[in-house]
């Protein structure tokens, strides 16, 4: 029941006539340490934490440790409530929740890394925006989590989900690929369409660098989570419409890893390049940590 590649995953889905989420659940029960019931309980707990972190900053604005972020989610929510949003409710809600989770994360609140803390906003953003706007059941959302887990698992095995190793494309790019596959399954798409969506997402976010200002998980991480969520919804919509990925998932995962390995170290979480190395980025670092002239 285990799989190492997207092709093996698809074969299992087709053989058993099951969605990706079912294959991922079975795999966890067979090879993991928990039984079926414990797996559901543990995932429900994670879902609860995600839900809380996506909504909490709409009630109370939190200050981040570095002081660079806080209040973005409620600004977007205010505009949405006033009916001014230009993105429509699904995308706007996704943007809001992505910002909220990063706000909670940066202020030492509790989040679920998915696959990392810096990219933790993408998956909950897509799950809850669709849940609310389409009235999906909790069971459907849980399926989304397992499908996302399967894609993340493939990327951990065949590429990387570490910004230090392969840049932001490996963190938020991976999170977005996971979320896009989850969205497709939750909206009734096939396993093939899930993998198409994930492949399109990776190709759309290919090459994104990891350049945190002052080395902190605040900016540009927070707004990139919004970009990740919107990318996920974009490719899910395309895949659900029957648009195929130009390059299949396995090849895109491999390509993402190669691109990541080719990035100079300045653009892999060292805070020495990109946004971090701009005059403004350097000034913010001095303001936060001091010790500058």
């Amino acid at each position, binding site marked *: 029941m*285990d799989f*190492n590649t997207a092709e093996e995953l698809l074969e299992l889905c087709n053989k058993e006539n099951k969605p990706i989420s079912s294959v*991922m659940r079975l*795999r*966890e029960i067979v*090879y*993991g*340490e928990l039984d079926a019931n414990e*797996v559901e309980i*543990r*995932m429900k*707990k*994670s879902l609860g*934490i995600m839900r809380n972190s996506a909504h909490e900053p709409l009630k109370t604005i939190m200050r*981040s*440790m*570095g002081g660079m972020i806080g209040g973005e989610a409620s600004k977007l929510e205010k505009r949405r409530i006033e009916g001014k949003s230009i993105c429509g409710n699904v995308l706007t809600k996704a943007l809001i929740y992505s910002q909220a989770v990063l706000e*909670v*994360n*940066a*202020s*030492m*609140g*509790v*989040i*679920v*890394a*998915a*696959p*990392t*803390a*810096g990219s*933790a906003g993408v*998956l909950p953003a897509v799950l809850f925006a669709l849940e609310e706007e389409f009235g999906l059941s909790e069971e459907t959302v849980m399926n989304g*989590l*397992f499908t*996302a*887990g*399967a894609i*993340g*698992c493939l990327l*951990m*095995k065949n590429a990387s*989900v*570490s910004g*230090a190793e392969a840049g932001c494309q490996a963190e938020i790019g991976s999170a977005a690929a*996971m979320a896009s596959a989850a969205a497709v399954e939750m909206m009734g798409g096939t396993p093939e369409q899930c993998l198409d969506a994930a492949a399109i997402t990776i190709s759309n976010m290919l090459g994104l660098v990891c350049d945190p200002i*002052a*080395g*902190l*998980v*605040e900016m540009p991480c927070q707004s990139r989570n919004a970009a990740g969520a919107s990318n996920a919804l974009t490719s899910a919509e395309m895949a659900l419409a029957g648009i195929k990925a130009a390059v299949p998932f396995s090849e895109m995962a491999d390509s993402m890893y190669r691109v990541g390995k080719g990035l100079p170290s300045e653009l892999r979480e060292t805070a020495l390049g990109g946004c971090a190395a701009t005059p403004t980025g350097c000034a913010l670092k001095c303001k*936060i*940590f001091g010790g500058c002239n």
Partner: protein
Amino acid sequence: MAFISVFEVIGPNMVGPSSSHTAGAASIARLAGKMLHRKIKKIDFILYGSFAQTYKGHGTDRALLGGIMGFETDDVRIRDSFEIAEKEGIEFSFSPNTVETDVHPNTVDMLIEDISGQKLTVRGESLGGGKVKLTKINGVKVHFTGEYHALIVIHKDHPGVISKVTDVFGKQHVNIAFLRVYRETKGGDAYMIIESDEEITKNAVDEIEKNPFVRETMLIRR
């Protein structure tokens, strides 16, 4: 290829902002805390590499202090660990070491003293994604991740001690998953780290402690 659980992808559940600098730091200290027999009196954290550079902005300090008090990675008390430690009467300090660079980028040394005055030094490394390992105990190089139930036996480097200890495990029907041995010098202090799938019973530990060459044991539940 090693099995990757869905909870390694969707997880860990953690206090932010960083899986390596916050959750990993809490896990390292929590693992070290499990090695103590008595309440902690004083702890000094020496931070290296990226930990030394960015520990304040990542709450690495709060996470380490919370971890040593037993807080899990998703325990919100981590945010207030300074105040909690002060209330508990624990002395603590953090010193960045930016001179020594020949270490893993996210390394911490923990100089611990318990209320009886007994000292323990532990080095830990945060490997990314919340994964950690302890690499030194009292200056002796070890490799210990805390993923299994474990017994650390500090004993005199003497012929036959290892077989006596593993014999106890066999008699108690506890399967040894990994066994690693380390020593300071020939005939000096030696360390045995035994990791097991099943919980290691108090009976087994008592039996092992009867061995005259065994100086100390630390039972670490997963």
